[in-house]
């Protein structure tokens, strides 16, 4: 197999790489997408640990019906900031700022992102935004305490005085801008910097997912930023967008927020679906089953997700139930297609249950459970019964947290060798997986039952006669063990750092271009690129006798259809 010499030339702005800064100064000044991607990833994992610790305090409070671990106000602050960090500062940035930044240019054979300086700016806005949110805890009035959705009138100045809520608003605005910049960057990179021969329908599914996520961010985030500005004006400048007394409408806030908020949950989920779609084929030693189906399912999810926002607002009585219910049920179809293509990829494959694959299977199980309860919630009669109970808490943790944690760690274990050139230990990885998988479901399955028995969410105390004490105790124990599984992961990182095992360029026999360069990749990523004749250029180069394009020469079904 000959590997064609790379003919692209790259102009270096500034100095040559010999005079490059190192250490702290490198971290501050680098515009290399790999450095920024790693910074994103590790920062967001720190946020995961911070928000996870908050969840531990919350669960400790709920161990007994009348817990005294924290005050009522503190409890509200904790779940608000827990939810906000997990959604705005962990799940999104981890995948879309971290993985996408590091992997996407590699997967399409690009030397860097399209706008490297903008990329660096995104990271700084994200870091400062996250810091701003945490600053709330150090103010006299405490952090924001109105839930991650900041419903009016709870978020008005009268009900939420002090600088904490303002810091929250600014934090969201800063991270929002960071997200928008990253989205512009990723979409442009994928549209304009692909290697020759890498047509759109040869892009890996991971890259596709990031492109679609970027498009969705560009639709949704501006609305969020606008809503934050309106909220700030209501609080300080005397406007009345969301106050009834001034002729405004609190439900308007819900409309604005969820018009962002529902696409947002797909913005969080799609990148992880992309990671799963990369990992399943590699560990089944097959090409992905139904490539185009996956691409169109991703696009369909994105398009539909703009039209389902009011399913969070059924109980307000102001929304057109049949419209939103129908669209919400429809979105289950492309999501189902994805699950079937993953299973179809595994079907008849030569599966090896390495840690990344285990996490993927854990993800599929948890996600399908959460997805099915989501379909239930999409029908208004059920939602009227369980709205704002622990049933909903269990549902969104299984879909969101299940995705971010299981698919996220699957991706982390899968790409860590590429990031660092070192392997993580399989034994510790498997231990982490089984602890996390069992404990996670132990945490959230009882919450479905608690919700059906009527336990509302966002309460620090509950009644003994509601018969939810035991369920809550199960849930708390599960939560503590879930947290311990993160400790196992930290140990794993430490071991791999102290006693490194070299990974080599392509430890998993991967398919896509990032495995065709060294680990970690050199400056500007590639010294040479293999010819790109299918969706799996690196597989083709390593297994010429099984190369994809050989099969494609035969009947060419797709060409006829086109």
């Amino acid at each position: 197999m000959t590997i064609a010499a790379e003919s692209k030339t790259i102009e270096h702005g500034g100095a040559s790489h010999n005079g490059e800064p190192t250490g702290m100064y490198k971290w501050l000044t680098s515009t290399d997408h790999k450095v920024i991607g790693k910074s994103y990833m590790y920062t967001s994992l720190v946020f995961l640990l911070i928000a996870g610790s908050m969840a531990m305090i919350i669960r400790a409070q709920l161990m007994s019906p009348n817990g005294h671990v924290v005050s009522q106000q503190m409890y509200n602050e904790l779940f608000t900031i827990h939810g906000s960090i997990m959604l705005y500062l962990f799940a999104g940035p981890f995948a879309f700022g971290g993985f996408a930044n590091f992997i996407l240019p590699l997967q399409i054979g690009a030397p860097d992102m399209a706008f490297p300086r903008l990329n660096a700016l995104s990271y700084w806005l994200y870091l400062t935004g996250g810091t701003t949110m945490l600053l709330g805890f150090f103010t006299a009035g405490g952090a924001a305490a109105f839930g991650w959705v900041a419903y009016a009138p709870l978020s008005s100045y009268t009900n939420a005085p002090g600088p904490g809520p303002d810091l929250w608003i600014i934090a969201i605005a800063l991270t929002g801008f960071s997200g928008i910049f990253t989205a512009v960057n990723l979409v442009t990179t994928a549209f304009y910097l692909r290697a020759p021969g890498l047509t759109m329908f040869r892009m890996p599914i991971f890259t596709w997912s990031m492109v679609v996520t970027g498009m969705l961010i560009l639709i949704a985030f501006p609305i969020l930023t606008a809503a934050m500005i309106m909220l700030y004006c209501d609080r300080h400048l005397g406007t009345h967008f969301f106050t009834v007394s001034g002729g405004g409408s609190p439900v308007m806030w819900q409309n604005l927020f969820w018009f962002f908020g529902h696409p947002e949950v797909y913005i969080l989920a799609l990148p992880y679906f992309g990671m799963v779609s990369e990992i399943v084929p590699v560990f089944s030693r097959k090409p992905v089953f139904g490539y185009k189906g996956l691409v169109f399912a991703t696009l369909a999810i994105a398009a539909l997700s703009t039209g389902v926002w009011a399913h969070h607002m059924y109980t307000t009585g102001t929304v057109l139930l049949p419209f939103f219910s129908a669209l919400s049920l429809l979105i289950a179809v492309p999501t189902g297609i994805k699950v079937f293509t993953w299973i179809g990829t595994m079907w008849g494959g030569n599966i090896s249950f390495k840690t990344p694959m285990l996490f993927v299977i854990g993800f599929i199980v948890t996600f399908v459970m959460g997805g099915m309860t989501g379909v239930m919630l999409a029908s208004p009669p059920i939602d009227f019964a369980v709205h704002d109970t622990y049933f909903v808490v269990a549902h969104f943790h299984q879909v969101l947290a299940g995705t971010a944690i299981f698919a996220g760690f699957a991706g982390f274990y899968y790409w860590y060798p590429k990031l660092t050139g070192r392997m993580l230990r399989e034994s510790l990885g498997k231990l982490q997986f089984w602890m996390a998988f069992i404990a996670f479901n132990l945490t959230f399955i009882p919450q479905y039952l608690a919700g059906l028995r009527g336990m509302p969410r966002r309460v620090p105390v509950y009644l003994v006669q509601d018969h939810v004490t035991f369920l809550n105790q199960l849930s708390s124990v599960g939560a503590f063990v879930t947290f311990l599984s993160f400790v196992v992961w930290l140990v794993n990182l430490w071991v791999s750092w102290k006693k490194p095992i070299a990974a080599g360029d392509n430890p998993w026999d991967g398919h896509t271009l990032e495995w065709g360069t060294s680990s970690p990749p050199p400056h500007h990523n590639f010294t040479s690129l293999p010819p790109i004749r299918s969706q799996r250029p690196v597989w083709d180069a390593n297994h010429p006798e099984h190369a994809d394009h050989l099969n494609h020469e035969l009947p060419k079904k797709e060409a006829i259809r086109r």
Partner: protein
Amino acid sequence: MKIEYRIYLGIGLFVSVLTVVYFFWAKEYGGATMFFGTAGLGIMPAMYMGWWHRRMKPRPEDTENATMAESKGAIGAFPSYTIWPFVLGMGAFMSALSLVFGEWTLVIGGALLIFGAR
């Protein structure tokens, strides 16, 4: 550019349909406005890319059997390192904090912003 353009167009058209259905069925103007804007966010980039698509030959990255040699010339200037994004970021941070802590942070932040954006 063809596929890029069609994706955006597809999203724009789909949301346009939703806009019309929603407008006449729900008769709720807030949601209809947001739908309308979203449709625009699909159609506007589609128009831009469609415009280019009609005016240029398929690029090497749009051709299935392009060789590496076909992409000639520099693909761009990629800086290795620069401090300015950090300066700009800190400027934005300090300026934003002035909304909470008063004008004094704006002085620092504004200075950094001007300095960084220069």
